[in-house]
């Protein structure tokens, strides 16, 4: 492909050279400004018809021209002279070959870029139009001149569509259906060339004026066609320019706009339109050529600045060094001058000392001056890069204050948005094992995006090199990135994915980006900045995940420590709880042993021992059941039981303790027997625990209310005391193992913190509920709600 294009280029350059030669050979009459009516006896209607007839003549050949002077026609026999001056030929060659050179240069620099290729063809055509402008078509060898004229027409017809095509792909691929418009245009151009070639083809020699008129008509159509294409190109380009929002990109496009407006527009307005409609022109051809020379120059500036190399950097460094050179030289000269003035006449050795001293001064000053100048140049002339560098600096500074991934993601997206506005952007984080991907921050992303696709791409090695993967045509060439054509780019309207990798090249996440809002490609600077930010955020992500891990470990160790504390508290409080009834049992047993007591007291003491023994056994049961719950081995044996019966038994067992402690017990039982499907020991345990709590936490008002009732589909056991109560904010925690209310009164009373945990477990196993209302200083009311079973169910239950 490249070779073929170069081969055609060489042919075209040869064509250009021959073109210049045939223009040089173009003949004209030496009589100045006259109106020609006939040439060698052939009547002509206009000056361009006369020009055509002269195009067939050789310079120096004698020619008979008829012309009008005043009202009558006169004839003159004269020798043909060159049509163009040497000055014209020089301008024509320079401008024409500059166009060819620029086209060739752009093509060589970017041989695989469609835009560059189109630019190359259009600028080649422009150059050739200039070089092969109508000259002598009868130059030797015979037919070459005819060929050049046909080629000229062909090029003229093609340059319009080519420019239009170029604008469609540059600065961005604008409309992917543009081909549907462009191919008919190319077709039309070819057709009109072929048709116009027929009357001009050298079948008849000399060519008749009649044939020329047909050719001329077709050529004018060609010109109008060019005008239409050129105007639409310009309109199209202005549109591209308008949608560009970034200042830097606009500046680049402005160059091209300038070229387009000055070159083709002036050519159209000052040359083509007057030629077609008035067969005359407003300015000389030389000026038109010079104006057209602006096109390749401005285009080349824009394309070079914009795509081919980082010209900014080169210019920037060159500027810096020139300024430094100038400054240091002035200082150097000034210093030497001062010294010489000061010392007066100097010997050779003194001047050596002076020179070494000033050199040292210069060397010392070089670096600080360079920094200043660099900053100045960057700030004044190269704002874009300066901003990018500022963003990078700021990002590195600020990223350390991001303590979680969401903040980091939002911050990163914000920063990129500030400098490179995009249609859509997202910050994706992968899970630890890489199969989960979450968008932590983003905007405008297609909801259908499957981020898991990216994770699978991540596993491929190309992403691991931490280079952005960019869809083809979305980035300037020579940017450090991988060009890919994954279909998902199109489906999800993305332009680029940038891996966010840790130090160890483990991919932690991705930045996904859509097109730039300006619709331009990503520049080398853009890619640099984005890659840099992605790298920084990779480091930050790693740091955040380490911090998180550390915090989790800390929290875990704190939790373990707390659990340990709770357990040691539990063992010490269990031993206290066990030792208290044991103390009284031993005390009363020893009292009984002493036999110094009245017989009526004896029975009372035995009751106390019995009551305390029950208490002890309840405690032991609680502890054992709790350890079963902890291990998950507690089982319940369900059967049909009467709640009335169980509650009576519970109250009977706790009665000694109640009466001994002088409690006032109020009971209210529903007369109807309530049957539920439950584990009877567990139900008794739950009720007993509530009662024990009521006893334990009652203070001055020793009154406990117990009721059994039916509420809709639930059987309700209520135990209500007038004790110290539970603080409202701690009600939610009371079922947690080892939890003890923090009010001082409760703390002083002591306890294991497992009673209510057991009750909750029992109630959950029965699909029941426990409701607790409490006010500090007023009392606590606990309700156990058991679902009442359908009587039709089998009476004997099963294990849970």
């Amino acid at each position, binding site marked *: 492909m490249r070779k073929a294009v170069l081969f055609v280029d060489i042919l075209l350059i040869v064509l250009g050279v021959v073109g210049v030669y045939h223009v040089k050979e173009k003949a004209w009459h030496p009589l100045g400004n006259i109106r020609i009516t006939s040439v060698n006896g052939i009547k002509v209607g206009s000056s361009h018809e006369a020009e055509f007839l002269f195009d067939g003549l050789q310079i120096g050949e004698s020619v008979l021209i008829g012309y009008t002077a005043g009202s009558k026609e006169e004839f003159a026999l004269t020798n043909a002279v060159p049509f163009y001056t040497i000055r014209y030929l020089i301008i024509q060659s320079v401008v024409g070959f500059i166009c060819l050179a620029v086209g060739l240069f752009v093509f060589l620099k970017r041989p695989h870029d469609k835009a560059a290729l189109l630019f190359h063809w259009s600028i080649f055509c422009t150059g050739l139009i200039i070089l092969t402008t109508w000259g002598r078509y009868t130059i030797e060898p015979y037919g070459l001149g005819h060929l050049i004229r046909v080629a000229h027409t062909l090029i003229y017809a093609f340059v319009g569509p080519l420019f239009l095509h170029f604008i469609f792909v540059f600065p961005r691929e604008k409309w992917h259906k543009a081909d549907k418009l462009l191919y008919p245009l190319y077709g039309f151009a070819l057709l009109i060339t072929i048709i116009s070639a027929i009357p001009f083809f050298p079948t008849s020699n000399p060519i008749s004026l009649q044939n020329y008129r047909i050719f001329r008509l077709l050529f004018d159509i060609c010109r109008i066609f060019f005008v239409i294409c050129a105007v639409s190109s310009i309109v199209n380009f202005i549109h591209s320019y308008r949608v560009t929002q970034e200042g830097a990109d606009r500046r680049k496009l402005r160059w091209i706009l300038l070229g387009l407006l000055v070159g083709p527009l002036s050519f159209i307005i000052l040359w083509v339109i007057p030629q077609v409609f008035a067969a005359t022109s407003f300015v000389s051809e030389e000026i038109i050529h010079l104006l057209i020379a602006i096109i390749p120059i401005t285009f080349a500036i824009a394309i070079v600045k914009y795509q081919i190399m980082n010209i900014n950097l080169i210019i920037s460094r060159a500027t810096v060094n020139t300024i430094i050179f100038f400054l240091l030289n002035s200082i150097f000269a000034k210093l030497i001058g001062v010294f010489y003035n000061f010392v007066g006449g100097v010997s050779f050795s003194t001047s050596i000392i002076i020179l070494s001293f000033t050199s040292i001064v210069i060397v010392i000053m070089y670096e600080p001056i360079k920094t200043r100048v660099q900053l100045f140049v960057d700030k004044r002339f190269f704002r874009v890069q300066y901003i990018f560098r500022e963003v990078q600096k700021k990002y590195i500074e600020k990223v350390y204050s991001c303590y979680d991934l969401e903040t980091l993601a939002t911050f990163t997206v914000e920063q990129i948005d500030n400098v490179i506005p995009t249609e859509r952007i997202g910050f994706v984080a992968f899970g630890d094992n890489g199969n989960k991907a979450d968008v932590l921050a983003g905007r405008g992303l297609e909801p259908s995006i499957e981020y898991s696709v990216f994770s699978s791409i991540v596993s491929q090695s190309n992403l691991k090199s931490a280079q952005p993967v960019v869809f083809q045509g979305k980035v300037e060439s020579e940017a450090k990135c991988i060009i890919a054509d994954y279909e998902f780019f199109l489906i999800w309207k993305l332009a680029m994915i940038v891996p966010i990798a840790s130090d160890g090249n483990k991919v932690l996440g991705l930045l996904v980006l859509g097109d730039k809002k300006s619709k331009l490609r990503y520049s080398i600077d853009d890619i640099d900045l984005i890659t840099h930010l992605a790298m920084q955020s990779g480091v930050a992500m790693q740091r955040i995940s380490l911090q998180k891990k550390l915090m989790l470990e800390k929290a875990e160790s704190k939790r373990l420590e707390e659990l340990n504390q709770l357990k040691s508290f539990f063992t*010490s409080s269990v*031993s*206290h709880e066990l*030792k*208290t*009834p*044991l*103390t*009284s*049992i*031993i*005390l*009363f047993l*020893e*009292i009984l042993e*002493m036999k*110094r*007591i009245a017989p009526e*007291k004896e029975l009372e*003491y035995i009751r*106390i021992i019995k*009551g*305390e023994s029950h208490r002890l056994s309840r405690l032991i049961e609680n502890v054992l059941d709790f350890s079963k719950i902890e291990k998950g081995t507690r089982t319940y044996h369900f059967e049909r039981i009467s709640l009335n019966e169980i509650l009576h038994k519970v109250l009977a067992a706790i009665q000694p303790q109640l009466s*001994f*402690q002088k409690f006032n017990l109020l009971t209210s039982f529903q007369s109807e027997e309530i049957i539920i499907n439950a584990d009877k020991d567990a139900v008794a345990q739950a009720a007993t625990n509530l009662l024990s709590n009521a006893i334990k936490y009652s*203070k001055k008002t020793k009154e406990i209310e117990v009721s059994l009732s039916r509420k809709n589909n639930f059987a309700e056991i209520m135990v209500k005391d007038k004790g110290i109560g539970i603080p409202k904010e701690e009600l939610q925690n009371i079922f947690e193992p080892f939890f003890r209310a923090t009010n001082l*009164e409760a703390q*002083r*009373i*002591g306890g294991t913190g497992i009673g209510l945990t057991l009750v909750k477990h029992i109630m959950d196993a029965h699909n029941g509920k426990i409701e607790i209302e409490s006010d500090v200083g007023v009392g606590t009311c606990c309700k156990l709600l058991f679902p009442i079973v359908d009587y039709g169910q089998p009476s004997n239950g099963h294990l849970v």
Partner: protein
Amino acid sequence: MERIIVVEDDIAVATGLEVILRGENYDVVVANDGEIGFELCKNENFDLIILDIMLPEKDGIEICRELRSVGIPTPILMLTSKKEKIDKVFGLGAGADDYVTKPFSVGELLARIKALLRR
């Protein structure tokens, strides 16, 4: 007849102590919570204070320390179910004179009471 006050919240333990001490011919006063116990100790004269550590309203250690700080020199015998806690009491210099750990035998208790009363 020596006067002894028993500050103990567990009614069964308190009753047992009361019965035993009466049997030994002491004049016994029982207080079931710390606040009442403290007020009694402060305002009345006793020859010995038997003080449980775990008490509602005001715990034994606090009572002990406050009694000493208001200059009451009455010997104090602490009752505890936690050996480590009593070490702390003495370590902190709360001012208790002796202790027994629950569960205790009557003989041990009486021996300590007598020893304290002899001082």
